[in-house]
Each structure stands twice: as C-alpha cells, then as structure tokens.
C-alpha cells in the first residue's frame, strides 16, 4: 500500500547580500526549518529558482510556500510568483523592524543579538502562517 507523500511548507528567504536584513531572512528560515518545524518545513536556494532549475520549480508548485524578504525589492516573493508557485504567505523583515523599533540589527556578516531577536520574531510569523494553513 502506498502512502501519499506529505507536502511540506517551503520557506524561502531572499538571502540578500547588501544588508543585514538579508542575513536575518536566512537566519529566520533556519530557525524554522532546523529548530522549530524540521519535519513540516523545508527550504530551497532562491538562486536555483532564479535560474529556473526544473526540480526547484516543481517543488514550489507542489508545496505551499512562505517567502521571507529583507528589502522592498521582495525578490523571494517575486521569484515565486513569477514561477507560479503556491504562495501562501509573505514575511517582510521591514515590517518586523517597524513592529520592534528598539531592535537594531548589526551588519550583513554579524546580525548581532538584536538581529537574532528579529529573526526569531520573523520565524514566529512564519510559524503562524504554517499553523493557519495546516
């Protein structure tokens, strides 16, 4: 008897290299996929989607996706939308910063303790979307 493969939420950070916010998106993603919900979530490399890797395109079309973007360019969300992925939610780190104005992240290479706190708050938002959709 075959068991239908359970779909996982795919968390996709922009991983921007220009600002600390890009690093925070990566950290938030790993907090979810490696610490909080390792059995229910997975991630992809956004550049694989950008170069239209077939396996990656199929993955975002077959699984619910949550994007985590660092800046207004919203590369993660736009790349998923462009490839007609199942976009179920989008987190913007700029919103998380607006909600937590006292937290000041460090830099791209070291987001610092406040950056880590912002990443955890972004991860909580991801969890809420995963919870709402399952």
């Amino acid at each position, binding site marked *: 008897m075959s068991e239908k493969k359970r779909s996982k939420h795919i968390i996709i950070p*922009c*991983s*921007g*290299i*220009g600002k600390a916010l*890009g690093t925070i998106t*990566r*950290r938030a993603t*790993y907090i979810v996929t*490696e610490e909080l919900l390792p059995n229910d979530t997975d991630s992809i*490399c*956004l*550049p*694989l*989607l*950008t*170069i*239209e*890797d077939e396996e990656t395109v199929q993955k975002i079309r077959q699984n619910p996706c949550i994007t985590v973007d660092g800046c207004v*360019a*919203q*590369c*993660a969300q*736009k*790349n998923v939308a*462009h490839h007609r992925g199942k976009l179920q939610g989008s987190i913007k780190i700029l919103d998380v910063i607006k909600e937590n104005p006292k937290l000041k992240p460090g830099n*791209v*290479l070291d987001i610092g303790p406040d950056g880590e706190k912002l990443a955890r708050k972004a991860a909580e938002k991801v969890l809420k979307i995963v919870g709402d959709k399952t």
Partner: protein
Amino acid sequence: MVSRVATRRILEYRDDVVTICLPLFLAGGQEERDFAKNNPCITVDGCDKMCASKGVEMYGKVHPKSSIVISEIIKKEKHSRPKSKSRIEPEDENLVQETMKIINEEVDKVKEKE
C-alpha cells in the same frame, strides 16, 4: 555561507568591487539585468549547481570573467565541509581565507586585462 562571507569581506576592504543579489536579476528591472552585461563579473558559487555563474549567463547574456566554486576549493585543498548554514565556525575560517585569496587574485587578473 562561505561564498557569502568571503564576498562580503572582500567588499569591505576593496573599493573597486561591488556585489548584487542574484535573485534581483529576475525580480528587478532591466537595469539590474544589464548590470552583468555592463560590468565584468566574477561569480562565487557554493556548489556545483553554479547558480551565480548560470544566472549571469542567463540574464546578462555574457560569460562571467571568472567562476569560483567553493565545493571545488574544498576538494582541491582538502578542507572539511562547513557544518553550519547560519554561521562561520572557527574551523571554517581557513576555507573563507582561501576563498578570499582566490577572489582577490581573480579581481586583480580581470583589472589587469581591462
């Protein structure tokens, strides 16, 4: 993480290089897509899927001037594979330094040819 950290560190002490977020080739406008066409590019890829190198070719319609692949450096120089995706551990520092040295050399070579 190694490609990311090595690239950023190079940017912090060389004032003749810039970087771009690869996904911006698709998410951005023509200006971003022309970036690769109008500037000599050195790509730094983590694995042999070589997204950065392929992205420059796909969106910039040019070959990168040089393509650096971290997994090849690991194999060639017998470095251990980094364990963390979120941070550079002390045992990864040699690999980061080696990658920075290679990026620096490649930038110098490209500048000499200009």
